[in-house]
Every structure is written in C-alpha cells, then in structure tokens.
C-alpha cells in the first residue's frame, strides 16, 4: 500500500497503522512538541499516544489531532505532522528549546496577559501546532443508535471475551465492544498462554464461539467513551473506509442501556521519568513488543529495555528473539524473581539490577543512553554506564483503565502493590474485570519510576503538553498544593490524551515532593469522554432541517394560500398577519384588529399547550401548582390561573377546565407547553407518586380555532351543532363538549382579545374542514382571519398578562396584581411551603445517596 506523510511517499502493508508503517519506513520524528518544539516520535501503540498525532486526510475529510497509532493504513492515505516550520525535521522554533528556562508553567498567563491575550493568540496557536479544523463542511454522515442489552462488556481482551462467554451462557443478551479492529487485546500478540493454550489460539476459538451465538453482538473499532446518569454508556464506532464507501456512516454513536456493565479495559503502561526521556526512539516496552509481534516492525537495531516491573522481561526476550540487539535490561529494583534472571540469561541479555536511565543523547532521534546504578536508598546514582543505541523501551508499570468505572461513581485507591490505582469495589454501576480490576501479576510490586537526580527541566512528565518535573516543582513552590490545582496550573494531563501516560507519574512526583503517599494525595477526576469524540458523531444526523424540525399548523396550507406572513414561534410556523392586496404589515394588523372588535375574526391557536389531567386526585394535584384555589371549581367551568415555581416566581399561566370531577384539561402558553408537562410529570413521579393522576400532553392532537368578536355567536350558530350557544346555557368561562359539523369538539368560552370568543378544539386532522366551514359561515359578517400581531395588540389593549413578556424569572404574583389570590388561598402560602419542603427533602436524599463517593 502506498501512503503519503508530509508530502513524501512511503510503502506499507495492509493491517498496518500509520504509526507502524512510519516506524517500518524509518521515520522516527513524527512531530514536534508544542512548547519547546522538540522532536518527537511514536511513543505508544494505542489510543494513549501523546506524541504521534497527525493531521489525517485532506480537504473536507481532514481530521486534526488524529492518533497515528489508531489510523488503519489505507492505500492513498495522506497525513501531515501538525507542527514544525519549515519542516518537522528542521524546525526553526527549535531555538525555543534552548530558552526553556523562560518557559515555565504559567508562563503564558503571566506574560501574555498584557495588554490582551487575543493579540498573541494567533501566533501562539500556529506555533503550538495543535492541528487545524477543516474549513469546508464535513461531507461524511454520522449516525446515532440506541441499544439495549443485559450485559455490556467493554474491552475484547482475554478478560472481556471470558466475561462475555460467561454471561452469554446464562442466556443473557450480551454486547461486547472492542476498541481495536480485532479481539484479543495483549494476548493476541504477546507470548502468554491461557489454560495451556497460546493466547492467540485461545482468543480465536473464543471469538468464533461468540460469533456463532445469536444473542451476542460484537462491535469492533468501538470505544466506550462515557458513563452517564441512569446507567447510560455511550460508544463511538468508527467504520472502515470501505464501509463508508458502501454508504455507511463514518462514525456511529451508540447510546447503550445495559442491565450490567463489565469493564475489561485492561491497563495502560506508564513511562519512566529521567532526563531527555522524550527523544524519538524512546517508547513504551509493551508498544515495542506489539510493533514487533503484531506488525512485524523492529523499533530499532540496538535496544535498551528499562523497567521497574516484571512485564518488560518478556518484551526484552521477544525483541532479542527477533534478531534485535538488546544491550541491557535495567530494572530499578534490586531483587527480582530468579525465574526472570534465568530467563534473561537464557536469552543472553545483560541484566542491570538497581539501575535506570539517567539521561539520553541525540540531536534528532535517540543515539545514546546513560544508565545509572542506583544507591541502595534510591536517592542517588553510584556509577554510570554509557550505551550507544537507537531505541529505548521503557516500562514504569501498568495503570488499570478505570475511567468508566470512576465516571459511574466508583472509587479508586492507590495500591502500593500495583504502584497504580485500583478499584475499591462495591459502589459503581460498572464491574471491572481482568487487568482493569488490578489483576496484573506481571507488573505487581514495581520499583521507583522517577530518576532521583538530574536537571528536572529536562525530565518530561506530559509529552503532549511539554510539562516537566520542574513545572510540577514550580507549581508546588507557588502553593498549588492540591493535585487538581497542580494539574490546572501546569496543564499536566489536560491534553487530548488526558494524561493516560502522564497522570500516574505526576501523582508520584507531586506526592513525593509534598512528602505524602499517593493515596493521601488523591487523584484527579476522570470525566467523559474517555478519548476525543468528533462533534459530528454527537450530532448524528440531527443536522440542518432535522436539527430542530419545523412544526406546521393543521391549517398551514390555508394560511399560506391566504397571504399569511409566517414566523417561527417555538418552532411552530405561525401566521403573524394576513397581507391582502399589497398591504403593509402594520396596515394588515390594524385591519385584522378592527375586524375582531367590530364583527369577528378567526385565529389559529393550535400551538396552545393542552394537557389532560385525569384520575380521582386530578383536582387536588393541580391545586398544588396554581396560585388560585381550584378546589371550588365546578364541572363545566373554567378558571384562569397562574402557575408558580417553588421559588414563588410566575412560571406559566393558562386555564383549567373541568370536564368531569376526574377529568381536567389545562392550557399553557404555547412556548411553555412541553416544559409545563415535564414539570407536572416530575412532581407526580418524584414527589407525589401516591396521587392517582395521569398526565397526557395533547397539544398536537387537538387543533384550536378561536372565533372572536361580537358576531361570533351568530356565525357559530350557522354551523350544524348540538350545542346550546345561548348566553344563559353557555356563559363566559364555561367549557362544553359536543358536535360541530359532525366533528367532536371541545369548546371553551375564554378570551384573550376581550371579545366574545369560542375557542374550539377539534381533532387536528379534521381541523381544516371546520376552519373552512367557519370562514364560509362568517362571510356575511366579513369574518377575517387574524394573526399573532393583531392578537397581541388586542390583548395589550385589554391589559392581559403575557407570561414571559411581561414577566421574567423574578416576577411574583403580587407584582402583577395577584397578591390577593395568594393570600386568599386556603392556608395562605402553605402549599408553597410544601413544594419547597418536598424539594429540599429530595435534594437531601440525593446528597445522602451520593455520600459514598
């Protein structure tokens, strides 16, 4: 396969990642660091990569800050390094590195605050080289899908596959997600065996068995990115280029509700900290092994392996067995298991116990390492050896990947045994298994990971953000003691990799400097997303017209055909005025308003919020929300009322109509309809679940036609109806049900214009018939349709309140002249105190439930 990097052509193989192909082609400098513009190379083999981030693709398909370790090589692939000017190999800004003492943490804040940060921002952003967003519209499609299952297993390594099999055998519907393109995790390439079977063979057999099981779904290239309230897990599935060409979306955002979540996310290897530990050629030991065994790429010819734990011994032997020259394995511990010593001897790899790298050399990439022999108290080095080498594989232990566990409310604690954080089981919606649970025999009891001597300005902790040990020291000197403050001041662990390879070292160093143990220091919060998620995936296909669907009135076509000027109100397209024969808007408004006052007008009030409240407690339930006393409401009557929040502020207004003692209908302001429905439902479900009430929003089901004006009764009586419209039978503020033109109708005598008004609710699908019948019936009186503008003019003349216009979040009933109603309500404000008390009680119970965190 052919691909291009920074304009040059290279060859790679199917199955390669961009990172492995670059390494195979001898490209060692993949980018420049953001602050000092130091050359940087591939450091890891996974999503934790802090260095080898590239601008992937070209034109509108471009992805900034893509991890080359996670980009599957495709023929014709194009990528660019973010940084380096004029080129990444020869970067003029490299000069910054020699002035490094000036560029301490907080430097930008302290220096560029004057006179105005924006003046510098452009230049600094260009220099930093964090990648740039494409200027064109994203041509790809994204998709959001929902998924329900009994057990969600996150991670397709040995632990995940075993968890999935166990769950599946009980008949549970299982979803297994794997971040990579194939199952197996480390077992797929390392030399371990499971139950006497080689790892790769074990995985293959298990994967085939799972694939044959109908109630198991396997999602590959899918990363679990977040755990949210109510047990929702979000996944990001990346589809391959050929799939996208066949019409699939580029990414799929899954929203999963699972009965149980098992977290088999394994562990992430951590680095060792020493001087110039950032040169290209230095990488994690596990990554060196994976490049070799999975991709057939040697990361160098002459290699040193430096470790503080057992896991790197197998790496050294693998590298040696492949023909690479392993000059030495250094281990910061003085005592290691005899089997490890024997193993290295078998492979004739020199072992240096009680030692670690002190410093490295090389102008671009790595060319030499100085290894120091530690004193027994680990405070200094006793002697130094020099090695000439082109690769240095480091292992500073493995940290369980517990992000989703922590997001789900799980506690983690520092384990001295592990030298990392392990879960404190018992309080999380997520169950860690395998390495994620801290079962990591090979990395138990690690030695020190930070060099005790050397220039701390040259000891990198966060490679992505160029944070050094000296920056952490400075933060502590400036009294940023909490690890959360140190993090924000130095920005350690705050870049795209979110500290996956720097977090543990930073804690280690800060706790040592403060004279605390890491468990006393605590840790920073792990928030979603676990790794970057493209905004396109979160938006899915809710774009353009679908971002906020327009709501059309039942009589929409009629309005358009009669000159309606339409505007958006809470997504409803509503007529504001009907322009006749070249009228101006203000002329139309005046004509419509006069028609309502002199004869009659017809208004489409369909967006009016309508909520049915049914059940034996319906009236008592509603009485708790309105400032008026509703308990005296009689059947067939309507009462106008103000609805308050528990703060006492006006929330909404509308009418309450009683069709039957156990059947009430409330109306809300059009813009507040769904909010009021949600508000009632929240109280019913959370605070008063014992009340026998059902709440049904029927705003869209019933169109509302408002016939207003002195001639309204005459016009309506011309239609075929079984209702007695005479004033004594149907006075103001009464509600009736009956048939009009054979259609079931609910008719309210309420008025927002100050005129005699029949507000007729009719099933939405039949509404146009009635509208047109009324227009025809009203022709002798010159009945005119009127829009929102005329309606608001008429109501203003009547001084009727328009909630949200004449009120804001601080307006209380007394401010609008409703103080009397509040005082007259039975028990005064007692009901409101009840609301507040219920709320407080709810808050306390939430706080108590979360106290274990």
């Amino acid at each position, binding site marked *: 396969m052919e691909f291009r990097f920074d304009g040059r052509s290279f060859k790679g193989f199917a199955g390669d990642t961009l990172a492995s192909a670059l390494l195979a082609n001898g490209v060692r400098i993949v980018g420049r660091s953001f602050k000092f513009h130091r050359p940087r190379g591939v450091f890891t083999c996974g999503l934790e990569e802090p260095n080898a981030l590239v601008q992937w693709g070209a034109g509108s398909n471009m992805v900034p800050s893509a991890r080359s370790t996670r980009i599957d090589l495709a023929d014709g692939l194009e990528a660019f390094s973010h940084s380096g000017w004029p080129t990444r190999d020869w970067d003029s800004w490299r000069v910054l590195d020699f002035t490094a003492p000036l560029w301490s943490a907080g430097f930008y804040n302290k220096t560029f605050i004057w006179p105005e940060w924006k003046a510098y921002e452009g230049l600094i952003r260009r220099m930093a080289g964090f990648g740039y967003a494409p200027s064109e519209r994203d041509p790809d499609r994204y998709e959001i899908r929902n998924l329900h299952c009994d057990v969600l297993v996150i991670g397709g390594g040995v632990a995940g596959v075993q968890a999935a099999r166990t769950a599946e055998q009980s008949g549970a519907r299982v979803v297994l997600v794997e971040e990579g393109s194939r199952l197996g995790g480390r077992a797929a390439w390392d030399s371990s065996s499971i139950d006497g079977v080689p790892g790769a063979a074990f995985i293959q057999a298990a994967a085939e068995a799972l694939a044959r099981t109908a109630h198991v779904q396997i999602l590959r290239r899918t990363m679990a990115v977040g755990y949210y309230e109510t047990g929702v897990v979000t996944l990001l599935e990346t589809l391959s280029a050929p799939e996208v060409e066949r019409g699939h979306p580029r990414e799929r955002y899954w929203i999963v509700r699972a009965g149980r979540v098992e977290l088999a996310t394994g562990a992430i290897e951590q680095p060792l900290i020493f001087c110039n530990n950032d040169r290209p050629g230095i990488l994690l030991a596990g990554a060196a092994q994976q490049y070799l065994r999975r991709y057939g790429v040697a990361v160098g010819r002459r290699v040193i392996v430096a470790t503080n734990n057992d896991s790197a011994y197998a790496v050294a032997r693998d590298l040696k067995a492949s023909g690479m020259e392993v000059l030495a394995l250094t281990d910061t511990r003085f005592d290691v298991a005899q089997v490890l010593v024997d193993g290295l001897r078998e492979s004739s790899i020199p072992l240096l116990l009680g030692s670690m790298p002190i410093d490295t050399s090389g102008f671009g990439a790595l060319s030499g390492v100085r290894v120091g022999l530690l004193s027994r108290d680990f405070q200094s080095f006793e002697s130094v050896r020099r090695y000439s080498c082109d690769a240095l594989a480091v292992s500073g232990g493995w940290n369980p990947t517990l992000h989703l566990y922590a997001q789900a409310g799980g506690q983690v604690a520092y384990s001295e045994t592990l030298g990392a954080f392990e879960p404190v089981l018992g309080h999380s919606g997520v169950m860690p298994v395998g390495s994620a649970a801290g079962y990591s025999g090979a990395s138990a009891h690690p030695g020190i990971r930070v060099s005790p001597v050397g220039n701390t300005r040259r000891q990198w902790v966060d490679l992505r953000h160029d944070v050094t040990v000296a920056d952490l020291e400075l933060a502590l000197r400036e009294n940023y003691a909490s690890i959360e403050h140190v993090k924000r001041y130095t920005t350690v662990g705050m870049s795209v990799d979110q500290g996956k390879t720097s977090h543990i070292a930073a804690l280690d160093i800060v706790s040592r400097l403060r004279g605390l143990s890491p468990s006393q220091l605590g840790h920073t919060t792990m928030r979603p997303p676990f790794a970057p998620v493209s905004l396109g995936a979160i938006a899915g296909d809710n774009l353009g017209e679908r971002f906020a669907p327009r709501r059309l009135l039942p009589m929409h076509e009629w309005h358009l055909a009669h000159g309606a000027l339409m505007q958006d109100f809470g997504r409803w397209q509503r007529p504001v005025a009907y322009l006749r024969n070249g009228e101006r808007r203000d002329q139309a408004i005046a004509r419509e308003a*006069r028609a309502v006052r002199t004869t009659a007008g017809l208004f489409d009030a369909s967006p009016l919020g309508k909520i049915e409240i049914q059940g034996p407690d319906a009236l008592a339930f509603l009485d708790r929300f309105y400032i008026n006393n509703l308990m005296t409401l009689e059947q067939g009557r309507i009462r106008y009322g103000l609805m308050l929040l528990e703060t006492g502020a006006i929330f909404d207004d509308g009418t309450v109509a009683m069709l039957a003692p156990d059947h009430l209908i409330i109306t809300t302001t059009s813009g507040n309809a769904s909010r009021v429905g949600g508000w009632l439902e929240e109280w019913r479900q959370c605070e008063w679940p014992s009340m026998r009430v059902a709440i049904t929003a029927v705003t869209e089901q019933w169109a509302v036609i408002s016939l207003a004006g002195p001639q309204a009764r005459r016009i309506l009586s011309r239609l075929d109806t079984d209702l007695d419209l005479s004033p004594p039978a149907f006075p*103001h503020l009464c509600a009736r049900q009956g048939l009009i033109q054979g259609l079931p109708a609910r008719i309210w005598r309420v008025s927002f214009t100050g005129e*005699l008004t029949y507000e007729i609710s009719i099933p939405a699908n039949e509404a146009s018939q009635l509208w047109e019948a009324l227009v025809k019936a009203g022709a002798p009186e010159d009945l005119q349709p009127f829009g929102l503008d005329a309606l608001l003019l008429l109501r*203003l003349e009547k*001084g009727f309140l*328009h909630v949200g216009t*004449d009120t804001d979040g601080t307006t209380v009933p*007394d401010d*609008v002249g409703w103080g009397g109603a509040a005082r007259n309500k039975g028990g005064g404000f007692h009901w409101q105190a009840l609301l507040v008390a219920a709320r407080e009680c709810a808050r306390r119970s939430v706080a108590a439930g979360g106290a274990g965190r």
Partner: protein
Amino acid sequence: VREDRLQLVGLVGEFDRNFIVGSHLRLAQSQQPTDGWITSAGHAVFSGEPNALALLRGGRRCMGMSVNVYDAGKMVMKAKVASPPFFDPQGERMHA
C-alpha cells in the same frame, strides 16, 4: 411583599410617538439609574393612542404620574402611568 418591587402597570403615551419594548423608565426626580422598563408596546385599536405595559418600581403607587421614557440612554418621551385595561374596563364584551 416589598412595595418598591417592579410592578406591572399600564402606560399611555403621546400620539404619534410609539413605545418601544425595552425602553427604560424614570420617575421625575428619580435618583435611580432606572425605575423599570416597558415589557409590551402597542396602541389602541381604534384611536391609535399608544399604550404599553411596563414593570415599574412601586408602580401601583404611581397611578396618574408622569414618567420619562428612555431609548438607548436618551429621554425620548413622557408617558402617564395608568391602570390597564385600556379598553372595555368592565369586560362586558367578552361576557356577552
């Protein structure tokens, strides 16, 4: 409830000078930067007389008083504080 809260009142203006929603109001001799603002503006359907609803500090005590109306920091007109409604105060028409 405090009496100097913003209370909803009506305003009646001078002919041919339209009220603008959001205009600030100050009472004569007021030491406050603002005494309230217009929330709804319009005019009488037949006479065309400008009318408005406004939230005015202690507004119910100010019935019949004159207020200065400000637009974009400049005093643009005077208005009289009135008690709505401006039409059919007894509501006879809607009870018809």
